[in-house]
């Protein structure tokens, strides 16, 4: 096993790692923005908000991410004429757009479920106290429920971030040169299977555990007063 070959090709791997991080960040930020309304729809009493949200979450959590990626990337080709008529074909033919779209739609579903659970886990007593003070509606959400819910959601959301980071490796199958894509390309060029896949694995490990430690720190800062004594 000769790791000097990795030293020769490390710029490609580094670019791949940066693309992986960028893809993760992009899909998570857009996903976060849409997931909160989606969670609220799920919890809504209005049938026409709750049911479609439920079906959305069920479909995107119940099917593999790779099926979703293929569906959007290859599947949109079947509707080329219609999409060109709508002026969207230029977007759907690009692998980057399809990758971000599928990752975002997927993470919206998982994140919405996390937020839904967190909102439902806000202690009843706090809500009653707020109602007793005369708070209701949007003010209640803004000042009591959402801050507490976000704090409760932090561990699960940290897991979701790691999950998204690892899911980005799947976009290598639609020709995006993220870390996995770069590793596969270099392996097919040099046949140094171990060196490149092991290096890619180590880089993913480092990225994952950096995020794990950051989240442990955040949890400690925000919810330290709620932790049990170890």
């Amino acid at each position, binding site marked *: 096993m000769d790791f000097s070959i990795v030293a020769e090709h490390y710029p490609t791997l580094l670019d791949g790692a940066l693309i992986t991080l960028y893809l993760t960040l992009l899909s998570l930020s857009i996903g976060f923005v849409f997931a909160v309304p989606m969670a609220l729809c799920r919890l809504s009493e209005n049938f026409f908000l709750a049911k479609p949200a439920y079906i959305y979450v069920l479909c995107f959590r119940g099917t593999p991410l790779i099926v979703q990626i293929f569906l959007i990337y290859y599947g949109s080709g079947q509707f080329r004429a219609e999409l060109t008529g709508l002026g969207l074909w230029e977007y759907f033919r690009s692998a980057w757009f399809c990758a971000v779209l599928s990752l975002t739609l997927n993470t919206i579903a998982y994140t919405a479920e996390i937020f839904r659970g967190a909102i439902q886990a806000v202690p009843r007593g706090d809500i009653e106290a707020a109602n007793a003070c005369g708070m209701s509606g949007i003010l209640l959400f803004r000042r009591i429920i959402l801050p507490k819910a976000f704090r409760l959601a932090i561990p699960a959301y940290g897991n979701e971030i790691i999950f998204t980071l690892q899911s980005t490796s799947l976009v290598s199958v639609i020709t995006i040169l993220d870390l996995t894509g770069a590793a596969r390309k270099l392996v097919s060029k040099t046949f140094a*299977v171990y060196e490149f896949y092991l290096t890619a694995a180590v880089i993913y490990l480092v990225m994952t555990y950096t995020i794990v430690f950051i989240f442990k720190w955040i949890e400690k800062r925000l919810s330290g007063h709620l932790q049990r004594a170890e």
Partner: protein
Amino acid sequence: MIDFKGYGWTLLEGLQLTLLVGVCAMLVAIMLGLLGAAGKMSRSRSARYAAECYTVIVRGVPELILLLLIYYGVPTLIQGVATSLGHDIIIDMNPFTTGVLTIGFVYGAFSTEVFRVAFQAIDRGQLEAANAAGMNQWLVFRRILLPQALRYALPGLGNVWMILIKATALISIIQLEETMRKAYIAAGATRQPFTFFLAAAGLFLGITLVSMFVQTRLESWANRGQPRYR
């Protein structure tokens, strides 16, 4: 009606293989999970260290990289060893075996956490009583620990199953003829990718819904006789 242009049956054949891979991988995952949980709770420091490494690696490395590493790497390794011993052989890893082993390996780590929590949730007093009655280790495990741990482990294992069966779609990348791969081939032959990937998505959604139903029933069965809120 949707026209599958004669490829409908091959999709169902792929579904069969998907389920087969899922069941085999789940068995591997459960065995590795029990081993890992035993390792994490053991008194030996090296066993705990090994189990900890196992979960750390699986959490940090994407499944696709592990899959590629094993599929392309193991034959290279064995061939390398064989050549250094003087034999000149060529071997190929069967995609089915690779898939089952990789997915089982990855979800074994998830199952380790599930089993660890389940075993730790059992009341210590039961173990003391069993020791006082003179039961040996194996009998204690078989009659006391396992039945009660099953009740706590079922929800977690059900979740692992649902994530695992979706992960089997990844094996299509190393050309195993399961649902995704069949859909890909059919889509290529008929130029209707959306139809076939949607059908594949529908099949996975069907598996998910059936699994959710079965899990609810199994949990009711496992919790029979336990006090419930009325």
